[in-house]
C-alpha cells in the first residue's frame, strides 16, 4: 500500500537501538535497560484518512549482557485521500509487521542486530539492521555506527478494496549508513548528533499517485498518467540536538535537522520539547515542531502535455510544503512499590495536532471546472490529529 519502503518495524527496531545507545551514554556504564512489556494503540485522523495502529512490545534480559526484544505492529487504513481520484474507491488495507532484535554488551561496546518483516497485500518489506555503540572518555561519549539493508517488493491493487487483485510492479532495495554521537557536556547538559546516508534503487514511485497534464479533450481539462521516477535516490540527513536539566527538575530540549537528496529536495526540521514531572507520579510533556521543504526537481502539479519530461511526479511528499505540530503528553506512574513480578507501571496518553500546507500541490478532488480551471484550484492543506495511548509494565 502506498510507497512503503522500510516500514515501521525497522523504525521501531532502530529507534530502540538508538534509544538504548543514548541511555547507555547517559547512564555511564554500558547496561541494558529494564525489561518491559508495552501495549500500544494509536489513531491518525486527517486528510480523509483514518489509520489505527495496535502494537505489542516485549523486552527481556537473559543476562546482564544479553537481551531480546520482540515487536508486533498492525495498522489498519481506511478512507479516501485527496490522491484517490479516478479510482474513487475507499481505501481499506492492513499491514502486519514483526520484528526481533537482540542486543549484546561486551565491556563498553553494545551490539544490536534486528530483523523486521512487514507485509501487506501489495507491499512486502524485509529489513536487517546492525549497529554498535562504544562508550569512551570516561563514559562521557557514546559513538554509534549503524547499517540497514531493506528489500521491498512493490505492488499495486488493481481490484477494489474488498476484491483485491494485486499486480507486482518491481523491487526496491535500500541501504542506510548511520553514525551518531551522544556527548555529556556538563552535569546538566547533554548533546547529540546523527548523520545518516540512505541510498535506494529500484521501483521508487508510489503507484497510487498520478501526475496530471493539460488535456483539452478531457472534460476535466486535464488527464492523469503514471508517475515516472528515477530508479536511484540518495539522501543525506544531519541532526543535532541538546537537552538541558533545568533548576526546578524539568528538562528542555531542542533539535535541528538538515536534509538534502539527489532529487533536489532540501528540508529543515526544528523541534522544541519541554518535560515537567510532578512528584514521582506524573510526567507532563509539550512539544512544537516545524518542518519545511522545497519541491523535487522533477515534481509538478500540472504538466503542459503528456510525457513532457523523462521523469514526472505529483506525489505530494515531493511538493514544496510546510507543517507545524503541537503535542501534549502525560504519563502516569502506578505500582510504585511493585506487584508480583512487576516493578512498576506507567500509562501514557499523547495527543498531537499537525497542520500541513502545500505551496505547489492543488486540491483537485474538491475543486473542478467550471469554477476552477486546471492550475487555479486552491492549494491543498489539511489538519491531522494523532492520538496515542499505551500501557508499559516494567519487570
Amino acid at each position, binding site marked *: 500500500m502506498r510507497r512503503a519502503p522500510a516500514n515501521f518495524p525497522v523504525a521501531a527496531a532502530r529507534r530502540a537501538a538508538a534509544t538504548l545507545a543514548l541511555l547507555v551514554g547517559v547512564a555511564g556504564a554500558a547496561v541494558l535497560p529494564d525489561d518491559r512489556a508495552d501495549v500500544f494503540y494509536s489513531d491518525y485522523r486527517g486528510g480523509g484518512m483514518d489509520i489505527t495502529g495496535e*502494537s505489542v512490545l516485549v523486552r527481556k534480559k537473559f543476562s546482564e549482557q544479553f537481551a531480546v526484544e520482540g515487536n508486533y505492529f498492525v495498522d489498519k487504513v481506511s478512507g479516501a485521500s485527496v490522491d484517490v481520484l479516478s479510482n474513487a474507491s475507499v481505501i481499506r488495507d492492513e499491514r502486519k509487521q514483526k520484528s526481533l532484535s537482540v542486543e549484546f554488551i561486551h565491556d563498553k561496546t553494545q551490539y544490536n542486530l534486528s530483523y523486521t518483516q512487514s507485509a501487506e497485500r501489495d507491499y512486502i518489506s524485509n529489513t536487517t539492521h546492525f549497529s554498535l555503540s562504544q562508550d569512551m572518555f570516561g563514559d562521557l561519549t557514546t559513538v554509534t555506527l549503524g547499517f540497514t539493508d531493506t528489500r521491498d517488493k512493490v505492488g499495486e491493487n488493481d481490484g477494489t478494496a474488498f476484491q483485491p487483485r494485486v499486480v507486482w510492479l518491481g523491487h526496491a532495495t535500500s541501504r542506510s549508513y548511520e553514525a551518531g554521537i551522544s556527548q555529556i557536556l556538563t552535569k546538566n547538559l547533554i548533546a547529540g548528533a546523527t548523520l545518516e546516508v540512505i541510498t535506494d534503487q529500484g521501483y521508487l514511485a508510489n503507484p497510487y499517485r498520478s501526475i496530471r497534464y493539460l488535456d483539452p479533450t478531457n472534460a476535466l481539462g486535464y488527464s492523469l498518467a503514471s508517475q515516472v521516477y528515477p530508479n536511484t535516490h540518495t539522501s543525506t540527513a544531519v541532526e543535532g540536538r541538546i537537552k538541558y*536539566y533545568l533548576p526546578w527538575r524539568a528538562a528542555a530540549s531542542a533539535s535541528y535537522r538538515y536534509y538534502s537528496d539527489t532529487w533536489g529536495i532540501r528540508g529543515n526540521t526544528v523541534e522544541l520539547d519541554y518535560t515537567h514531572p510532578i512528584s514521582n507520579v506524573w510526567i507532563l510533556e509539550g512539544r512544537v515542531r516545524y*518542518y519545511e521543504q522545497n519541491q523535487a526537481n522533477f515534481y509538478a502539479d500540472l504538466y503542459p502535455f503528456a510525457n513532457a519530461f523523462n521523469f514526472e511526479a505529483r506525489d505530494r511528499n515531493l511538493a514544496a510544503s510546510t507543517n507545524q505540530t503541537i503535542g501534549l503528553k502525560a504519563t502516569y506512574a502506578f505500582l510504585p512499590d511493585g506487584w508480583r513480578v512487576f516493578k512498576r507501571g506507567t500509562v501514557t496518553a499523547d495527543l498531537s495536532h499537525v497542520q500541513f500546507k502545500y505551496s505547489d500541490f492543488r486540491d483537485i478532488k474538491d475543486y473542478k471546472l467550471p469554477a476552477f480551471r486546471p492550475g487555479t484550484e486552491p492549494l491543498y492543506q489539511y489538519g491531522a490529529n494523532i492520538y496515542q495511548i499505551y500501557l508499559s509494565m516494567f519487570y
Partner: protein
Amino acid sequence: MTRPNLVDSRRVAAALALAAATLALGACGGIQPWVKPYERDRLADPIMSWQRDAISGAYLDHVYDSREGSRGATGTAGGGCGCN
C-alpha cells in the same frame, strides 16, 4: 575536461572529516572525564532521556517520514504506509 563529481567530492570530504575526527579522538586517549560519575544523577533522571518510549517515538517518526520528503538521522529508517 571531466567535471568533478560533486557527490563523490562530498563523500570524500565526509570520509576525510570522519577519519580526522577519529584520529583526534584517538589522540585524546588520556582525557579525564570532566563530569564525574557521581555528578550524573540529573542526567540519569528519566526526564533526560531522548526518547523514553520506543514504540511511540518510532510511530511519530513514521507519521512524518511517510508524509514528508525528508528522512533519516532520527534513529529510524523512514518511509511508511498509510500515506494516501
